């Protein structure tokens, strides 16, 4: 009964003209940037963050959340038609989606991607609505040691799932923690690493950091090489998948939804991992695995369902524990904090309108996206023809205004540029920026939890080992680190053997 009562309460929040229009704006912008390669939801949300100062917090989060899940819909369009993923989470869709387009089946590929996304997105919101309230009750019993250990586990999982080197990811997390300590110490008021720059006393802003690492560095990477985009010239007809397409895709959508949702909850898991795992699972369970990579519709349905479902899952740690599962959620934390709202278990009690309003907005937003992505597909295809030479100066320009508008300070703009250059070099040398940003956001909460725990225990680290949830988290974290080390040495031994045997 509560389920429907909460849903109705949420719908009463979202179905106001203001929230409805911002929900539409969010999913529209999300689809737009999902379609356009070169700018992702992270950069866009960072650009739009300063613009949300003047609107109510619930409306702001509805807008930003819409951009996030809207981008997952839009990302598939470029994967299918251009063979360039609009979003990292749609990389795997290129394998079968583009092949389908070459075979003249772009319509059904786009159609199943949109329907699969809609079904998975809706299922994940149902999952979120069902899981979040009981988890909030558990989270209310957490003290500083549990929070600290949970954040350590979160960072370790994030680095464990890093696509490149885990050691590099761990180091990036360290840099993020360090950057998070810049500014006034919240407990003593002492300035830290501010180098006599007054603007740094408030700490490094999340917006310049994210815009630099994700927006500016992406532009540098794209302009250093001339990338040609070839939009599939096939006429897109019959977007509705046939009965056979549905029969072939139904289990792929179901499995993709489940995999995406649960991997979305994990820190660093999110949409990318969900899409990759669901594709691998489909290939494994398929009776005709040889079809994959040659235009199998399941190869489009599964990852597209998974990446949408992951967005719902990612909201669980944010809304219940106040811990971001990925960089997008870190930006949402920033947005909540700007409005004076602390995310975490108290959110449901103190701001039920925001909690249920945001969840209900996802049902509405998913429905809007279905309409936006099927009848308006022609519009999105036209957008693909906008050359990058026009697009990137606009991205740069909006990053410049966005970073300036937060505090009316050129120091923020300079910081953004600095992080842009650092981010460019980091990506070149295979250092992932995501652990840095997440650790940066978690750093102040982590520091407070660590110091409070040590004060509580009069300086004994045993406080982290005496509590069941805390020790559980630390054991899992240690296990993951050990597994990673073992697999590194095993790999090295095999390489040596191969070298010796020639």
């Amino acid at each position, binding site marked *: 009964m509560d389920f429907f009562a909460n849903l109705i309460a949420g719908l009463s929040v979202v179905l106001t003209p203001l929230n409805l229009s911002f929900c539409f704006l969010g999913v529209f912008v999300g689809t737009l940037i999902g379609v356009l390669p070169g700018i992702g939801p992270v950069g866009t949300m960072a650009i739009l963050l300063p613009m949300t100062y003047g609107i109510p917090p619930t409306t702001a989060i509805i807008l930003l959340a819409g951009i996030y899940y809207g981008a997952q819909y839009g990302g598939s369009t470029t994967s299918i038609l251009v063979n360039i993923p609009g979003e990292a989470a749609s990389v795997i869709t290129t394998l079968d989606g583009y092949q389908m387009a070459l075979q003249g089946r772009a319509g059904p590929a786009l159609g199943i991607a949109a329907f699969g996304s809609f079904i998975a997105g809706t299922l994940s919101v149902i999952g979120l609505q069902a899981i979040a309230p009981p988890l909030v009750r558990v989270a209310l019993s957490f003290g500083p040691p549990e929070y600290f250990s949970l954040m350590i586990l979160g960072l370790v999982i994030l680095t464990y799932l890093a696509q490149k*080197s885990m050691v590099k990811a761990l180091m990036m997390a*360290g840099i993020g923690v*360090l950057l998070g300590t810049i500014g006034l110490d919240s407990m003593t008021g002492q300035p*830290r690493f501010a180098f006599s720059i007054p603007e740094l006393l408030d700490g490094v802003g999340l917006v310049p950091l994210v815009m630099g690492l994700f927006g500016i560095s992406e532009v540098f990477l794209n302009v250093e090489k001339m990338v040609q985009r070839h939009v599939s010239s096939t006429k897109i007809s019959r977007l509705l998948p046939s009965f056979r397409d549905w029969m072939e895709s139904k289990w792929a959508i179901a499995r993709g939804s489940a995999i995406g949702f649960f991997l979305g909850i994990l820190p660093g898991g999110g949409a990318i991992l969900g899409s990759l795992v669901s594709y691998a699972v489909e290939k494994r369970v398929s009776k005709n695995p040889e079809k994959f990579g040659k235009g199998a519709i399941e190869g489009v349905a599964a990852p597209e369902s998974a990446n949408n479902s992951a967005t719902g899952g990612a909201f669980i740690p944010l809304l219940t524990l106040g811990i971001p599962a990925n960089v997008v959620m870190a930006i949402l934390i920033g947005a909540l904090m700007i409005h004076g709202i602390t995310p975490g278990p108290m959110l449901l009690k103190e701001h039920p309108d925001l909690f249920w309003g945001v969840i209900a907005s996802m049902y509405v937003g998913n429905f809007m996206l279905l309409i936006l992505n099927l009848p308006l597909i022609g519009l999105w295809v036209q957008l693909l023809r906008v050359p990058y030479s026009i697009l990137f100066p606009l991205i740069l320009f909006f990053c*410049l205004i966005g970073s300036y*508008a937060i505090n009316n300070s050129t120091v923020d703009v300079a910081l953004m*540029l600095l992080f842009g250059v650092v981010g460019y070099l980091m990506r070149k040398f295979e250092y992932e920026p995501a652990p840095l940003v997440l650790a940066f956001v978690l750093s102040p909460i982590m520091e407070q939890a660590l110091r409070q725990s040590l004060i509580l225990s009069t*300086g004994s680290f045993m406080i982290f080992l005496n509590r069941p949830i805390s020790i559980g988290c630390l054991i899992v974290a240690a296990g993951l680190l050990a597994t990673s080390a073992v697999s590194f040495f095993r790999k090295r031994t095999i390489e040596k053997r191969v070298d010796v045997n020639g």
Partner: protein
Amino acid sequence: MGSLFWFAVGLISIYGSIKLGVGTLREPGSGFLSFLAGGSISLMAMVIFLQSFLRRGELLVKLSALWEGVRWRRPVAIGLILVAYILALERTGFLITSLTTLFVLFKIVEKLSWVKAILISVSISGVSFCLFNYLLKATLPRGIFGF
């Protein structure tokens, strides 16, 4: 190279944390977390350095491939334009700086036609000025010309 840079960053933050005051376990000081972070950065940087030392052969091949076909002119030009934007913004005002920056990006870096470059620059800077100044009530710098 990269690992040595990060190693230095770690050491500097350890030094800075000690100066701030690491405190004790009973009463951690302002530099406590940054001290731990600096230590782990240095440690990880050492591990990366050792890893790359062990695989220096393949690393050299990888490094040269990294910069292959890179057209330096564009990223460097964009970086310099952004620096100029930061330096000029509060002196010449939002409208003139933005208009000039966009025009330079479109005309000189991207070599669009005069008409296209002027049209896009004027419309984008004008629309964003109205959006931020009037709709979002943001205080954009007016500069010496007063707009």
